[in-house]
């Protein structure tokens, strides 16, 4: 296999096909060949997690994955998290709770958090679980607490029967529990009030 390979991927639910060198990094395929620049490069050596994407449902560092090994697989990037250009609950919680600052680590963190929430299936993960799930994503701005709170608030806001008082369980401090409970309320109400999106943008994303 020299020259270029005909790579078939399903990226954020959409079938894509590109001709790329086999050892090109998945990160570069996404950014350069598919124009999905939401995924960032931080360290380029699997330390920082800025390039995290889901490959067949599990988180990977896309700077360490050769294109040919992703052939035929499903890829989810940060661009795939919004639902018809409406922020997902997880993204909304990051906005509500100040969990994004400079933004370089945010796409990778959102993808890792998405994996955790999918795995937790409706349960609000404890602080310790969130911290382990995000251990491969470095953030130099936030000090992590707001990120951890936001992930937990998103999980709490997503539960139909969520009682704000219970949302704080598994937090390490009472104040963290209060932040998560109020963040969950704000996230849930922001999700209800979000404006309907423009029709043009919808058809583009759905294409």
């Amino acid at each position, binding site marked *: *296999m*020299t020259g270029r390979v005909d790579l078939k991927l399903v990226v954020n639910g959409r079938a894509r096909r590109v001709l790329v060198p086999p050892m090109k990094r998945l990160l570069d395929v996404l950014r350069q060949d598919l124009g999905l620049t939401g995924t960032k490069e931080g360290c380029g050596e699997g330390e920082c997690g800025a390039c995290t994407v889901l490959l067949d449902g599990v988180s990977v560092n896309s700077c*360490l994955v050769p294109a040919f090994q992703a052939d035929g697989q499903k890829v989810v990037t940060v661009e795939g998290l919004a639902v018809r250009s409406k922020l997902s609950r997880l993204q909304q919680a990051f906005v509500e709770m100040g969990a994004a600052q400079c933004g370089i680590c945010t796409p990778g963190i959102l993808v890792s958090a998405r994996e955790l929430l999918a795995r937790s299936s409706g349960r609000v993960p404890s602080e310790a679980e969130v911290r382990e799930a995000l251990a491969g*994503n470095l953030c130099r701005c936030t000090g992590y607490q707001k990120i951890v709170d936001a992930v937990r608030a998103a999980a709490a806001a997503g539960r139909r029967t969520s009682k704000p008082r219970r949302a704080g369980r598994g937090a390490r401090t009472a104040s963290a529990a209060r932040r998560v409970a109020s963040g969950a309320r704000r996230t849930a109400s922001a999700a209800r009030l979000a404006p309907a999106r423009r029709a043009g943008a919808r058809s583009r994303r759905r294409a």
Partner: protein
Amino acid sequence: MRSALSKLEVVRPRRLTEALSEMAEAASRERPTPIAGGTDLFVYLNAGELGATRYLDLLGLRELRGIQVRRDAVVLGALTTFHEIRTHPAIVRRLPSLAAAAAEVGALQIQHRATIAGNVANASPAGDSLPVLLAHDAVVHVRSVRGERAIPFERLYTGYRTLATDPDELITAISIPTPPSGAFAFFRKVGTRRAQSISKVVFAGLLASDKRHRSVLVRFAYGSVAPTPVRARNAEQALIGEPPSAAAAARAQQALARDIAPIDDIRSERDYRMTVAGNVLDQFLRAADPRFMRGS
């Protein structure tokens, strides 16, 4: 340097036999460099530190997959990932120190891709799983077109990042004997942070006693304190046949200095590593049997 990635060739065999013929000597072409999860290899590639232009994909080889749990051993296919190891119920139960080591390799993104044979073949003295394999008398199964053989893990490394394997051999599986029932297994990695760190000292211990509480199986295995992962044989010897006592533990501590040869490097210093190597040994013995602490 990354543009060079576009010039690299990849061979994708569908069967192990095809992979082995690619690895066999051929004057007409470059012997390919095997790639599986790529979590070490791409670090070197991205840094422009790899000269190889041909790569052999192992991820597509089903023969190298799977975990077999036998009565006497657990056999890990070469492509077994650390995530598979840490979540496998029989491994968690029977080889808890291996599961613990797997859970501390990088973070989830790495654990999803990195393979046990990759960790072994990369041959870093700091490889997280290596002291566990050493402590458990693991056996590395390798194959080439010439045949297959089993290499005791203890004899796998002949020097810094040097393997006893031949250039045409591929690792196919790693078998780990089941420790005697009642044996106590322990793993401790000391680095700058809990995840995503390369160890300053990494340790795996295994201890089993007879009915009269004398230590009969003693394994102290260290990483990051010598050019290869090493057993602390002098320290082990200080406990063999002895009942647990603070005096025996102290003799093991003293002997440890003759077993390891840490260096100053970017991650730590010799003196720190010596101290920590002693501390983790202490921690292990204390956890294995409180009588190692009596009187101290």
